[in-house]
């Protein structure tokens, strides 16, 4: 990709998406929101401090603001929109609502992606592991207690469903 005005394809939530007429230096966060209309990932700090833009890139939870979009060609990108069928909340999203873990809501999509990623790799985390896994997602409303309670509920429900 050597053109400043670019055309390239990204794989987002299982679909191939064309990125046209963008500046080649745009971050993945910017492209997701402004070029592809996926507004779930939020932009706040744009320097990897807040976690509100967290997406899965080839299975890793990363800050999409720090991914050069054009370098993500060929990678599998999953945003918060891709975690559950459209209009149906995932168990994590439902638990956040039930526990009042959503207040202003700005950090929520990034936290939801981070929680899905954590529980996929560690289905029964200790509280310290939960806190570590979510340490890159900053919430200024909840004080985190309700978020941790929501995660505990998902863990318990999934364990119950599996047994």
């Amino acid at each position, binding site marked *: *990709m*050597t*053109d*400043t005005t*670019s055309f390239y394809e990204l794989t987002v939530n299982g679909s191939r998406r064309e990125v046209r007429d963008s*500046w*080649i*230096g745009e*971050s993945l966060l910017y492209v997701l929101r402004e070029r592809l209309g996926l507004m779930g990932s939020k932009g706040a700090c*744009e*320097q*990897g*401090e807040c*976690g509100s833009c*967290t997406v899965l890139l080839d299975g*890793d*939870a*990363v*800050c999409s*603001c*720090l*991914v*050069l979009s*054009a*370098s993500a*060609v*060929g*990678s599998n990108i999953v945003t918060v929109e891709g975690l559950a069928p459209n209009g149906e909340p995932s168990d994590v999203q439902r638990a956040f609502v039930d526990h009042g873990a959503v207040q202003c809501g700005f950090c929520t999509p990034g936290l939801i992606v*981070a929680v899905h990623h954590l529980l996929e790799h560690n289905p029964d985390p200790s509280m310290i592991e939960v806190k*570590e*896994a979510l*340490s*890159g*997602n900053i919430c200024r409303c909840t004080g985190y207690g309700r978020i941790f309670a929501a995660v505990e509920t998902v863990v318990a429900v999934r364990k119950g469903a599996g047994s």
Partner: protein
Amino acid sequence: MSVHVPTSLDEAIQLLVANPTARLLSGGTDTMVEVNFNRTKPEAVIALRRIPSLREYSIGPDGIVIGAGVPYASMETGPLAEALPAVAAAARTVGSPQIRAAGTLGGNLGTCSPAGDGLPVLSALNASINLRSPRGTRTVPFAEFMTGVKRNSRATDEIIESVSVAPTTGFQDYAKVGVRNAMVISVASVCFVHDRNTSSVRVALGAVGPTIIRAREAEDWLAGRVDASKQLPSDGALATEFARLVASAARPIDDHRSTAAYRRHAIEVLARRLYLRSTT
């Protein structure tokens, strides 16, 4: 700006020859901040994240080789963490889980910030940096690689391929002070490596000088007082004097993150703590 995404190191080297001013992009955690805030606009970017060989590591009797593109997350636990506990300790202190999934030692070395958490560890482990260019492979000791604040001896046609570390036996750890306990840049840091194989203790300091500083005077002083082929003595007075000498090697400054006096004090506390931790 042009963006190139090579899938092999040879292809990346050819692209660098064709675009000698290109910015090499690893995890993006430094460069993309500059791009997002319009502080830099490279003519060309060569993204290295899709080169599989850079994301490999090997652990053998002759030493450990860590590819420049191995993310910190892969160093926190598992075989690399067991082989190099100080690398694991440093990796765990880098940014957030999201940053550790992206950030790499190659990126840390390319940026060469004195606050880079990987760098004191590479210094104290006497690591070598392996560089590839059209001219072949060049291996540079860490001490000759980092030359100043965000300066290194990488030639413009070279790509950082990996770091090599000789096997060590004995305690090693990394400790850091920041303004909070997670997601934080280093205000002062110490890596302590007790290598029984070479009967030596090596100490490197981060964020308290223009480069990573080795506390050579303290290392030599300790070598004259202990038998480093064995476990170090649990001696509080010895630890105190050792830590004082380590702190005297620091060359900290006052800046927006901290003061020189606090940084020197923090180095002394961390050095004493790590020495005593090594004796238990």
